[in-house]
């Protein structure tokens, strides 16, 4: 099964509520998958700075003084904000890759969950309510976000196997379904220089879209390509720095419901996930069509 949710805000006055609304949506989807849960929030950007969300299996060992050690290794100022097993490192934009590289030697057990100007990603093994409380997601503000609660099929129940998967700057993906050609695609993407953290099929889908967007496609075009190149069952919800996309495979057996008002676009695996959104009674509610790309972009909004 798996449950997925997404919320893309059009009305800026809702932005302080994003974390709370998305947390509530994800908790409602708990019985679609109890193994692990995660949320990506696209929050405020600080011009000239980038964020790296990292996770540690032993935060008490890895996080104290991590900012100082990274600063010593790279010569730039690193700001550290610890949230339970995760921490957000804020670094000068130009030094993002240098800090990321330094992490491998300074703190080799620390794993990167995602990075970019805006995105922060938090995911752990456990139920959605526990996971969102651990990371204080409800208090987070942002312009859009996606979430996932997992019933594992294709790889182990671990933090790294939890969704969202992020394989490019400010990009992330949640997936309900299973891909059947992920091993082949993974080999091809590796040949193109992509590195993978897990054996998970959904990570391959995320990396496929990242590679397509790196090649110059926008999210919409990348999703169109996915219809031709990915084999299997999927409903995807994808986030980029300013965009939000939804795609279902042509068979479309994985459920999806969407709602749109003047204030937001919302996605849920089930209608239940949407019932507490403001103004849902007046929203346009529909089931996304199979093999049809839906995407919204703040940067392209009229």
């Amino acid at each position, binding site marked *: 099964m798996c449950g997925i949710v997404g919320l893309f805000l059009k009305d800026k006055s809702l932005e302080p509520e994003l974390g709370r609304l998305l947390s509530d949506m994800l908790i409602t989807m708990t019985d679609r998958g109890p193994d692990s849960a995660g949320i990506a929030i696209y929050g405020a950007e600080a011009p000239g700075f980038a964020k790296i969300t990292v996770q540690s299996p032993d935060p008490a060992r890895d996080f104290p003084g991590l900012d100082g050690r990274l600063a010593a290794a790279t010569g730039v100022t690193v700001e550290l904000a610890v949230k339970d097993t995760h921490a957000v490192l804020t670094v000068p934009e130009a030094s993002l890759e240098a800090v990321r590289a330094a992490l491998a030697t300074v703190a080799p057990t620390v794993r990167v969950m995602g990075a970019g100007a805006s995105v922060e990603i938090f995911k752990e093994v456990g139920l959605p309510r526990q996971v969102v409380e651990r990371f204080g997601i409800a208090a987070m503000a942002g312009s859009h976000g996606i979430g996932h609660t997992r019933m594992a099929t294709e790889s182990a129940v671990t933090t790294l196997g939890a969704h969202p998967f992020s394989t490019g700057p400010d990009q992330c993906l949640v997936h309900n379904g299973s891909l059947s050609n992920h091993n082949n695609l993974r080999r091809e993407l590796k040949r193109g220089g992509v590195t993978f953290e897990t054996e998970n099929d959904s990570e391959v889908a995320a990396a496929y879209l990242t590679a397509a967007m790196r090649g110059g496609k926008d999210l919409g075009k990348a999703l169109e390509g996915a219809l031709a190149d990915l084999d299997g069952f999927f409903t995807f919800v994808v986030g980029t720095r300013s965009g939000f996309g939804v795609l279902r495979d042509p068979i479309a*057996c994985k*459920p999806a419901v969407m709602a749109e008002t003047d204030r937001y676009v919302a996605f849920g695996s089930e209608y*239940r996930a949407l019932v507490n959104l403001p103004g849902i009674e007046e929203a346009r509610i529909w089931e996304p069509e199979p093999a049809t790309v839906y995407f919204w972009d703040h940067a392209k909004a009229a």
Partner: protein
Amino acid sequence: MPVFDLAVAPLRDLNAALHAVGAGANDTHFEVINPRGHHAVAVGADAPVTIAVRGSVGYYCAGMNSEAAVTIHGSAGPGVAENMMSGTVVVEGDASQYAGATGRGGLLVIKGNAASRCGISMKGIDIVVHGNIGHMSAFMAQSGNLVVLGDAGEALGDSLYEARLFVRGSVKSLGADCIEKEMRPEHLAILADLLARAGVEGVAPSEFKRYGSARKLYNFNIDNVDAY
């Protein structure tokens, strides 16, 4: 008139009350409020009661219905009226995938659109959709009637048995062994009756085309033995 507010009452209280309705009971109108996408609302009713569901529901609403008249004043999630035996189920909004799947009798009316696999493996149910239906509808449908006032998606009636399919709009493609068939007077009569019972006005049976089984997949064909 029993009213179940699913914002506070457990779903099982509603379904248990429906199952407990005895022969000759007087209190036969049930109201369900705040369904909020709940699964399995009003499942397994087995008496001639009326049930009004005030809002949208999740999976499997009115499944296995016998005799009851259920109206969903909202949209329905996957599998509405799945395996219905008799009675009527009316969805005022849209229905998600596999509406009326495996239904054995009764009438399912969807006033909006139905998604993929509408009427899959239907076995005697009648389904009237005022809007469009999605792909793979009436897959392996065995008997009963599927009436669509709008358009049908890809692979309509794939591997069809003896269900009758009537579509007023376009059909994106027909599935294996499904063909257009002649509309005879008895079919027009069936259609007129179903349209009337489904509350459809101003639409003539002659506006529809009939589709059915070419009956080529019924029996093993010895010419295909090498394929196995």
